[in-house]
């Protein structure tokens, strides 16, 4: 099933991206080829030495929204630009894009020829009598295949992110695996395991109740419930390694593994610390109000997950996968 979901995510991603880009070709939301009219507040006029205008391009939000045919901004547009005239007399405009730029232009610059600039062709430049301002019309570079570019970029970015996440785990994994090894040698995990045997025996009937895997799973679930995700992942991975020692068919998930994963993905947590922190930061009168509702939600998810794992493992197709 993971095969289909995985290829599904990629194919849907590609098809929707192409579909969106074709729609953009028809609707032209970036106004490719159409002149944008604005006022240039001149800071440096061309002199004998240099043929460059420098200044700020300004426009009202109404004009901006009318040009793009949608509500794109609510603020006055004011962007530093330079306009230079080439040898052939054609003038080109280069606009710095910063965090203060309108979101739509930032979006366009991402797919443009230069990441931090928006380039355009000046079709009209009429200085006012006092040389302080000028009327300009500019056709920005054509923006095409925005989504397809974004999908390509995302594939590369996320591949890098995956490596960063894994490398970030090395230190913390080593720390917890070391501590766990000491607890194992000292016989502490066995003590913990014995106490919870009545529960674990039902959840994982295939696992001998005194197996080290049980201790690691208990530690992982406890860490998860306390919201100690830094500790939970290494402990969970240790549990998976222990479970794999009992795996009769290498490379295939056992029933116990799936049940263990169901408990993990249910995400039962006593204190949803991240959600509470975000609520407090957003100025909530009572950030902790979601503790109870989250426990109900995660509790239902966990029960449903464990039940589903127990029922689905009996289906012939999943049974057959386990046979050697």
């Amino acid at each position, binding site marked *: 099933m993971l095969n289909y979901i995985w290829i599904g995510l990629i194919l849907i991603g590609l098809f929707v991206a192409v579909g969106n880009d074709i729609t953009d070709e028809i609707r032209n939301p970036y106004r490719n080829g159409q002149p944008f009219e604005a006022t240039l507040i001149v800071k440096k006029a061309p002199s004998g030495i240099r043929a460059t205008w420098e200044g700020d391009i300004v426009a009202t939000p109404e004009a901006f929204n009318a040009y793009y045919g949608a509500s794109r901004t609510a603020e006055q547009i004011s962007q530093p630009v330079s306009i230079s005239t080439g040898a052939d007399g054609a003038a080109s405009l280069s606009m710095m894009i910063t965090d203060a730029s309108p979101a739509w232009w930032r979006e366009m610059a991402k797919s443009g020829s230069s990441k931090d600039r928006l380039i355009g062709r000046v079709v009209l430049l009429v200085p006012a009598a006092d040389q302080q301002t000028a009327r300009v019309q500019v056709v920005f570079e054509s923006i095409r295949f925005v989504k397809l570019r974004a999908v390509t970029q995302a594939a590369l970015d996320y591949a890098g992110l995956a490596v960063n996440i894994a490398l970030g785990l090395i230190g913390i994994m080593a720390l917890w695996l070391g501590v766990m090894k000491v607890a194992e040698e000292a016989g502490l995990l066995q003590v913990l395991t014995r106490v919870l045997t009545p529960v674990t025996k039902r959840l994982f009937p295939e696992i001998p109740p005194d197996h080290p895997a049980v201790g690691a799973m208990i530690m992982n679930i406890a860490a998860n419930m306390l919201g100690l995700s830094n500790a939970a992942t*290494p402990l*969970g991975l240790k549990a998976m390694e222990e479970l794999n020692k009992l795996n009769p068919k290498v490379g295939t998930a056992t029933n116990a593994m*799936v049940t263990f994963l169901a408990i993990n993905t249910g995400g039962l947590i006593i204190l949803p610390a991240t959600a509470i922190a975000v*609520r407090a930061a957003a100025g909530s009168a*009572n950030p902790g109000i979601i503790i109870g509702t989250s426990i109900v939600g995660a509790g239902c998810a966990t029960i449903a*997950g464990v039940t589903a794992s127990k029922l689905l493992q009996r289906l012939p197709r999943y049974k057959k996968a386990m046979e050697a």
Partner: protein
Amino acid sequence: MGEFLKSFIEVISLIAIPLMFLVFLGWGLMKKVKVYEVFVEGAKDGFNVAIRIIPYLVAMLAAIGMFRASGAMELLISIISPVTSLIGMPPETLPMALMRPLSGSGSLGIMTELMKVHGPDSLIGIMASTMYGSSETTFYVIAVYFGTVSIKNTRHAVPTGIIADVAGMLAAVWIVNLLFH
């Protein structure tokens, strides 16, 4: 009572890790385990485990990244929001429900955004934060946990995870509507 419970749990989360170090290593010392040597012996595996999950994580995250960047989420939302509205799920929270199993940072971003726009104590704000707390990043967990032991045939893990996610989201909608509507 709620406040007390919250500060109690906060104290527990604070002391849990130092306490674990103390008890585990202290117990080892009492049982005459050579703590330093055994610790190092165990810690050796850390590197291998982290390296082993890389291909699984790259495969999973790249696919999720492509899906997210394409704008497919918006399309999916416009298709299924009429159905989810029937069960009392505000359409604004649908992206949250769909993103939660795929991406932890993505769903965190959506939750923050929803609170900024609608307020943390609005029905939407409470529902989004409950949804966030009601599930885990299922596909990340599957990739990382199975990656550690090089499992390629995940058998019923994916349907199980999806069933758990759907149940968690439905329960979140139900309980929040019941208590805060």
